[in-house]
């Protein structure tokens, strides 16, 4: 399908641009679809394309030499990924895979640099998008450094709760472990601890938050 200006408008990078400018930028953007589980970026490969998510959810993650995985972000519609690698130049800093069938818009490095040069509003938007990424990474560092595993899991549950519009993915224990920076085996135990504290009820396929304040306390976040 052709790239649509209407969809570009809601992407942070292009926010606030008039339609005629979006129309010109549109010609530099291409569409890419990926099936569930398909990798769209490989760590270590040349960083050539920045992607925006039109629909679906993409997991951005790093893998260690012994196969351990650390999730950095789950990216949702209107968000971008591979920004830092493309802007810095060099190699993709992480892998990215589709958690559900996804549609992406991509822009090549040279085209992105031209757009940033020609449209000051885009340059301002890039600063905002990168700042939001730094904020998320600081939150991840805080999580890994200061919280015990049940606290980390509590924080994940709060972040991924609700949102029935499908923008938040369902999570497996494996995925929770990758976000929390721990082994999969720890997740089941952590969930049991949280259930014993009365903050959640574990059901088949569902984790029901029954006491949000207690969960916030476990997660160490302000109520």
């Amino acid at each position, binding site marked *: 399908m052709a790239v649509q200006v209407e969809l570009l408008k809601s992407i942070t990078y292009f926010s606030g641009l008039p339609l005629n400018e979006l129309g010109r930028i549109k010609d530099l953007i291409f569409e890419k679809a990926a099936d569930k589980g398909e990798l769209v970026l490989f760590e270590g490969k040349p960083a050539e394309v920045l992607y925006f998510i039109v629909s679906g959810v993409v997991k951005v993650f790093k893998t260690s030499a012994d196969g351990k995985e650390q999730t950095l972000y789950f990216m949702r519609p209107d968000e971008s990924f591979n920004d830092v690698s493309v802007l810095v130049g060099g190699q993709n800093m992480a892998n990215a895979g589709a958690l559900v069938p996804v549609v992406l818009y991509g822009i090549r490095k040279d085209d992105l640099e031209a757009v940033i040069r020609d449209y000051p509003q885009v340059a301002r938007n890039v600063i905002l998008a990168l700042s939001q990424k730094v904020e998320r990474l600081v939150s991840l560092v805080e999580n890994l450094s200061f919280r015990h595993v049940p606290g980390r899991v509590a924080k994940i549950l709060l972040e991924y709760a609700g949102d029935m519009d499908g923008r938040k993915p*369902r999570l*497996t*224990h*494996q995925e929770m472990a990758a976000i929390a920076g721990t082994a999969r085996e720890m997740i089941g135990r952590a969930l049991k601890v949280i259930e014993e504290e009365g903050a959640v*009820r574990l059901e088949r396929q*569902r984790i*029901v938050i029954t006491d949000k304040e207690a969960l916030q306390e476990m997660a160490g976040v302000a109520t």
Partner: protein
Amino acid sequence: MVEMPSIDRERCNGCGLCIRVCYCKALTLVDNVVIIVETEECGWCTQCEAVCPTNAISCPFEIVIEE
């Protein structure tokens, strides 16, 4: 209809570990690939996902806030 764990047939190497841990006998090997049979007995214990060496099985959880 009961939702069951999902299996990525491309990733499944047919090792059969999941079949051994499944208490409700919902998994079986056909042509060296695991297939899943719908059953009310499946309690979403996630053991099949835990033992899978190729991450071919997914047991995702929805996270909701009680109204």
